[in-house]
């Protein structure tokens, strides 16, 4: 059963819409087409994986939808807001409250405790310190690190650090969670735990997730897979279809 956008969109509302997004870089005299007219909708509550080889434009696409970079042409709408129209302070506002970022290398502040790291976006959003602390503890509890709130990144394993990073990304209850290869630095077992956590967050709390990954294990837990090749959307598949294919090929995930 091939993927049908209209069928899939039925009954869903979009959180993010990329319309004809194009990005050109000037590298010396040569113009690099990082993105070529990408049209893509991300729907509320879905778990979308973005796959593609290195240099395919995945990261550039992430920067566009994350409000970190602006397209050369085309528009990115977050709900109804065109991100290209926002000034620096409004973009900071957006990044603070509407988007949560999870990085490949965790990017925790090494001088702060887990709790301080989680409450950092709340500090930026101007939340009262006591409220921030309470919410930070609740989030740490949710990712299973309540008893490690006073530990610094150095004292935690990679998986634990990524959990803290996920809790931090959720700090201001964002509309969208952007994960950039969250398991690339982790071993398979820990990676699977992170997958499980993201899956639970998506299913139980309804967090919308976009996740760039090379990890085929992740495909199990997501709804849709977007393949980006050479700066454009090559194909979109439903995870359920893919799993059937895989099963029929006899590929069995342990």
């Amino acid at each position, binding site marked *: 059963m091939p993927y049908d956008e209209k069928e899939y969109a039925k009954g869903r509302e979009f959180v993010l819409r990329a319309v004809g997004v194009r990005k050109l870089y000037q590298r010396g005299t040569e113009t690099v087409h990082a993105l070529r007219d990408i049209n893509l909708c991300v729907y509320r509550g879905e778990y979308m994986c973005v796959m593609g080889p290195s240099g395919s434009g995945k990261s550039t696409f992430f920067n566009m939808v994350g409000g970190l970079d602006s397209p050369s042409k085309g528009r990115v709408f977050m709900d109804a807001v065109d991100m290209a129209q926002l000034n620096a302070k409004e973009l900071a506002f957006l*990044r603070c409250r509407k988007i949560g970022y999870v990085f490949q290398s965790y990017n925790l502040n090494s001088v702060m405790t887990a709790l301080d790291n989680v409450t950092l976006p709340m500090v930026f959003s101007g939340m009262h310190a006591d409220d921030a602390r309470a919410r930070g503890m609740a989030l740490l509890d949710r990712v299973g690190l309540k008893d490690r709130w006073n530990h610094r990144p150095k004292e935690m394993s990679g998986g634990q650090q990524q959990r803290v990073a996920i809790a931090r990304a959720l700090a201001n209850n964002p509309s969208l969670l952007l994960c950039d290869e969250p398991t690339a630095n982790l071993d398979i077992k820990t990676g699977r735990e992170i997958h499980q956590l993201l899956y639970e967050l998506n299913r139980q709390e309804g967090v919308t997730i976009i996740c760039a990954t090379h990890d085929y294990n992740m495909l199990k837990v997501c709804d849709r897979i977007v393949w980006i090749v050479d700066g454009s959307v090559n194909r979109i598949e439903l995870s359920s279809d893919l799993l059937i294919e895989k099963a029929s090929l006899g590929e069995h995930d342990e």
Partner: protein
Amino acid sequence: MTSSEHMDVRKQVQLSFRKSLGFCLKGISYRLFRSSLTLAVVVVAVAFFMALLSEGTMTRSIGKGVAAAVLDLREGDLLLTHIFYPHSTLGLSRKLAAAHGQPETLAEFAQVAGITPEAAARLAGQCRLENKYLSFFEDMNIGKRMVLVKKARGREVFTILADPARWDEFTRNLANMRSLRLPTDITTMRAFVDNWPNHLKSLEAARAGWAATVTGLQTRLQALTGGGDVADWIAGARDAEVEQWRQAVVAAGFRLEPVVMLRLRHLLTLASHETRIARLLQSDESRKAWKESFGSLPSLEEQFAQVNDPRADSLLGGSFTPQQRVAVAANFTRAQQLRNLEDKLPVRRTSGGEPAGFLDGSQLFLAVISFIVCMVGITNAMLMSITERFREIATMKCLGATDGFILNQFLIEAAIQGMIGGTLGMAIGLLVALIKSSAIFGVSVFVYFPALPLLLCAVFTVVLGVLLSMLASIYPSRAAAAMAPMDAMRVE
């Protein structure tokens, strides 16, 4: 969130200074090593500057103290000169110019010279002008002077300029010499020149009056003292006689309060004793006797410093009480100390006799160089710190930090480093200056310790450290604030 809900995008909130500060302090405490490198740069620069500044301050304070002390020792001489010295009209004119605007001194002068206080004040005003014009002509170079007044010297210029033709020539030439500035306006000078013969006449009259009074006074005092040396007479006089002497001086119109007389008497007595002791010590027999009782014969200066020794008593024929000998020795030692200090003080004076400014040229040059090195050092250290922390900065921007917040973080960090480094540097610099100065001047540093000026220097240097540090980190802070948030995604 439902679809009907319109997404509301506002400007990101601005964090309070207190929050920013707390955030920054937390960061610094974990990057102590990097911070301490920047700190060391500030410390060295500020310490260097503080050492220069406070050494200059201490030297100046000692210089001032010594000058005052020397004046104090010579007070007796100065008072006697004031009373008995016969003035020329030129000398009198200088004296009156200095007394301009001092009613008490002018009143005294009027009394002694036998003129009204108003006339004395008028005369003083004219004398002030005279001295201004005289030094105007004295100070200019010889070429300009030849053009303006030919070969006229000193007061001759006033007689020459009285001639209308010469005056016209003078004003014409003066107008062409842009670099010259007349101490008063030209009409005042013209009026003064016109009045010159009258001025000289009244000055001469005042001088004659003063001289007559002083001569009269001297005759009267000679009757009292028997014509000998004033100092010797006062040293041996009884209280009542001294009071008589003072009354006579006061009757002539001089101001001489009992307190001042007491001091004058003390100083003159000391001087008289010193002269007598010197005379006694220089005789051949006493030199021999000194050698016998002390075992050696030092210079007269060293002998003076030892007259408080009991052995010296018999040498001096027992004519001085132990207290007197102690006083003479102490006075002598003090004068010697002051002379020593004067020798060690740098001779650094401008033409007006005023001490030179805070730092001289070469010191200022060194200070400026040290600041430039310091700024480059801080900028470099800050840039390195930013390169090291690019991911942290970019991540913070992803999490909602504004450019302003990042900028503030780095500026606050720089200010804190400047403050701590400045304070440390100030303390080190002060210590170095203290050690150096006390090696040169000994305890005199603490006798004339300039606490308040040093405090000002300290505050100034700490503020300077903060400013310097902040100035040096403007560029790195801006670089940090301009960092792209997508760098956070980068993976090495």
